[in-house]
């Protein structure tokens, strides 16, 4: 059940707030109206706007999966005025949720394929629903390789789930950081070099990457070197946006809008965009 006015958020309640890193929190949100909540469906890759009433709203990729029927999770890094205000909320607070918006990862098309998830920093957050879905329907998919990178060990998001992921069948978890600390015994390397080192095979595979523009740029170079075709490389873009509907005219890249033509694009699609992102 959609409201008449797509700029009106659904009143929602912050159920739980979990610290993921020093500046990233996971927000578990539940829509207040039971009818709307029942009909609120979304797919991996889609995003919602979350309002801190009195400050404003910003778009965030959804990190939960709809089939768990447990509301909407978003991982929010504190970087601006809206995210600052959201970070100061306590469980029980009323927020606004608008969406879901955008296209999604076509997971049905990935069935039977090997999937490589390559995420950097908070850019890993919108990739988590792919992992959850693959692990929930494990037999439908091939191998799963997860590369999660961050500036430092404490900046790696979703640490409580690492053990579950690593222990899953046909699944490999590779963690890497730009700079370690005294407790870190893992990898210290930039994500693109991990991609290169793992020699990911493009055979029957799909690589999905998200992170800072510079990381995506060099990851792309490595994937191409490994023989990945542009239609095997998928990313999700970020753009400044105010509506999610293609109306505020901010997030366009050439004649495509990140909010409604994206945020999920294949490199093949990106290379055909008029404007460079």
């Amino acid at each position, binding site marked *: 059940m959609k409201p008449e*006015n797509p700029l009106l958020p659904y009143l929602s309640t912050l159920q739980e707030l979990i610290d993921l890193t020093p500046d990233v929190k996971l927000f578990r949100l539940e829509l207040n109206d039971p009818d709307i909540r029942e009909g609120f469906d979304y797919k991996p890759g889609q995003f919602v706007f979350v309002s801190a*009433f009195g400050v404003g709203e*910003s778009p965030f990729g959804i990190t939960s999966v709809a089939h768990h029927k447990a509301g909407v999770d978003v991982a929010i890094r504190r970087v601006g005025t*809206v995210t600052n205000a959201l970070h100061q909320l306590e469980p029980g607070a009323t927020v606004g949720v608008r969406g879901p918006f955008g296209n999604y990862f076509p997971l049905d098309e990935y069935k039977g394929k090997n999937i490589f998830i390559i995420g950097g920093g908070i850019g890993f957050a919108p990739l988590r629903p792919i992992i959850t879905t693959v692990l929930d329907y494990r037999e439908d998919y091939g191998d799963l390789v997860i590369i999660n990178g961050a500036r430092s060990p404490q900046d790696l998001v979703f640490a409580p789930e690492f053990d579950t992921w690593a222990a899953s069948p046909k699944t490999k978890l590779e963690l890497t950081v730009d700079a370690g600390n005294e407790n870190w015994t893992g990898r210290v390397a930039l994500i693109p070099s991990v991609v290169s080192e793992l020699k990911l095979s493009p055979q029957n595979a799909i690589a999905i990457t998200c992170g*800072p*523009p510079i990381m995506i740029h060099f990851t792309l170079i490595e994937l191409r070197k490994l023989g990945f075709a542009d239609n095997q490389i998928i990313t999700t873009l970020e753009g400044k946006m105010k509506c999610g*509907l293609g109306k*505020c005219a*901010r*997030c366009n890249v050439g004649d495509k809008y990140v909010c409604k033509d994206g945020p999920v694009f294949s490199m093949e699609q990106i290379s055909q965009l008029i404007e460079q992102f």
Partner: protein
Amino acid sequence: MSEFISKKDLLTWLGQLMEERNLVAPTRVDDLLLFSKIDQVEDIVFDFDNTTLSPKEWFYPSSETLFYVEQKDGQTELIPAVIEKETAIFGIRPCDAQGMAMNDFPFLEEPADDLYRQHRDKTALIGLACITACPECFCSSMGSGPHDPANVDILLTEVADGYIAQVLTDKGKALLPDNLLTTADVSSPPAPVLSEVPSDGIAEKMRQAFDEPFWDRLADRCIHCNICSYVCPTCYCFDVRDYTDKERIERVRSWESCQSPGFTRIAGGHDPRSTKGSRLRQRFSHKLLYFPRQFGALGCIGCGRCVRACPVNIDIREIIQDVQQLEVKSEA
């Protein structure tokens, strides 16, 4: 024979309209000509080329509240804004009416923008055909024309002692009392001759010119103010922010311009359109390339306001001409 209304009857009728709804019409404010809400019909200016600012303010206000949030006793309530009163805009030029029709594409595309739709539904347009034109006008090159009846509810064309009236829609019919119009043996004056701008095939040429240094050179001169966007009837970018006072919170949207620095800068600092040239190119690409691809029509209606108002003479007519003639370097 044409349907006719005398100047005197027109004034009486406008006076009646003013009683029952908002009447908006061109008025003189200092040296400017602005669409204003009319309190007395004597304030209406009939003899003008076009207004300084476009009438888009009355469909898509420079600032408006989208909804209110009220918090009482731990309960939060959302109260959407509602447009209560009907409005009639008198004196809108055919080019500007076309501009509103262009804004319908993005705003009314489903899921439609609710407030815009309310404004549009509750507003009737009484157009005035152009008898003269500004030197900067070029509507006839952009899919409209000085006598274009396509996007108004009633079109009036000035003749001796009154106006030829074309009632074009049911909304227009509903505005007119019975027997107000008479018939008269008058014919429409010739439309003014406008400068020609070579807009045919411009979208394709814009695509070819996209990566040319032309845009950076043009941006040398651009000061990146928001004038062109704000005087333009078809620029529709917006910003959204919350306002808080003691009682309640309001979510407000205001016009924004793709020319302002930081328009595309995301939290964290990345800005995909950080150069002056890329920002300037965005404005013209949106109107002449993206909009046609998205909606099948040019996003500029040739009112000439940006040409008149630009402090550094960034002239869209010249740009269209230059882009048409640009020799694009073939990719070696």
